[in-house]
């Protein structure tokens, strides 16, 4: 078994119009910038994929990565907890123009819904959002005298995730706080595509230190020196550059 993929283009080749795509990262930390940009390249060359539903904690920052994906017009709906950033202009303009739909989900509920999707739990109850606008229309049930809101699992066709090391079987480690949503999204997507700084041989990752076991991963592609969204934004970068 070998889950490694030859390049970024083939890694994102299976994503089709209208699909749901979970994208890892919390702000720039853990954002799979190279995979996102490869997806934009494909759209610019072919007109596909479009009308994507994207799941991410945020809504992009500046004009690279997720923000560039939105700016390219590929995203019909965003499911996130915090669509603000240092420079949220891309999402804000699209949203206020009614060109992108937003499902706002509390951050812990978002994480738990994704985990539930991966763990075969179709619904669960949480105290989070009880009595607020974000619980509107959701079933409420009382347990041990306290009210809780019923939330549903969240799954996706694809996950695009950035990890640190990955072996041919798909076992992954992450790097510091870049772990965030990655392990959950790998669980919840039919096809989880992961960019890693280094592809290593099976056995090179200590079995005790595997964070995402390979069963949750369908493709691994090496991006040896990934860029950081923060660095790109400090340099006022845009993707694609031609749009600048």
């Amino acid at each position, binding site marked *: *078994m070998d889950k490694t993929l030859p390049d970024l283009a083939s890694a994102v080749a299976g994503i089709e119009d209208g699909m749901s795509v979970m994208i890892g990262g919390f702000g720039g930390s853990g954002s799979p910038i190279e995979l996102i940009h490869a997806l934009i390249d494909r759209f610019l060359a072919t007109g596909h994929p479009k009308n994507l539903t994207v799941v991410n904690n945020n809504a992009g920052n500046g004009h690279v990565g997720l923000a560039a994906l939105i700016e390219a017009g590929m995203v019909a709906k965003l499911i996130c907890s915090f669509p603000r950033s240092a420079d949220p202009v891309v999402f804000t303009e699209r949203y206020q123009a009614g060109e992108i739909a937003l499902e706002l989900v509390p951050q812990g509920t978002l994480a738990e819904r994704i*985990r539930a*999707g*991966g*763990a*075969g*739990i179709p619904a669960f109850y949480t105290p989070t959002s009880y009595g607020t606008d974000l619980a509107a229309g959701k079933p409420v049930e009382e347990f041990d005298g306290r009210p809780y809101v019923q939330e549903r699992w969240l799954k996706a066709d694809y996950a695009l995730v950035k990890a640190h090391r990955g*072996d*041919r*079987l798909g*076992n992954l480690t992450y790097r510091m706080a870049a772990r965030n949503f990655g392990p959950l999204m790998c*669980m919840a997507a039919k096809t989880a595509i992961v960019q890693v700084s280094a592809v290593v*041989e*099976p*056995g090179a990752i200590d*079995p*005790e230190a*595997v964070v995402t*076991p*390979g*069963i*949750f991963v369908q493709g691994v592609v090496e991006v040896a020196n990934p860029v950081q969204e923060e660095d790109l934004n400090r340099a006022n970068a845009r993707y694609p550059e031609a749009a600048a």
Partner: protein
Amino acid sequence: MRLTPTQMAWRAAQDIEDGAYVNLGIGLPEKVAQFQPPGRQAIFHTENGVLGFGEAPPAGQEDWDLINAGKKAVTIKPGTAFFHHADSFAMVRGGHLDVAILGAYEVAETGDLANWSTGPRGVPAVGGAMDLVHGAKRVAVMMDHVTKDGKPKLLHRCTLPLTGVGCVTRIYSSHAVIDIVQGSFVLREKLAGLTLEALQAMTGATLHTDGPVADLIAPEL
């Protein structure tokens, strides 16, 4: 005339694809791992938190922190991963396994499985069986076709307490390979010397066919 348990395990192993994630139930199904066809390598999952484990260690070299769900010592190999029980059953319940192969007391043409309780006497024990039947893309059972006193174990409806409803997709019995398709037993293979009529007489619900029935063949093992 019947397959031995080892031959049943061999037959079940022939259907496991290269790279499949597989959970083998405690006992007889564990033998399936020994018969992976040449060129194919399945990755085995055990409920207690190991993926991609290796074979049993030599006697006397067991590490009792490294066991499978049957509490037998196993080994690691390159690419093994450890995880806790909630992650382990996320793999199961979340549908990430390709194949689960379980033992069975009874299977109904509805796909219902009974394999955890022979009734109110004794101490009930379920383990991971009720999770596994809802977890894998294919849930197969290995079982004798009839009880020791010759009564059918493949039934119209189960008589024993259920493990799961409508969950079994294929049966590897001592006499046949049978799929469960929309609430019916569909015969795929039977022992060459066994007539359909004889097999039907050993089976508690109607055997259907929707194409040629192959000979069920396994090597001497």
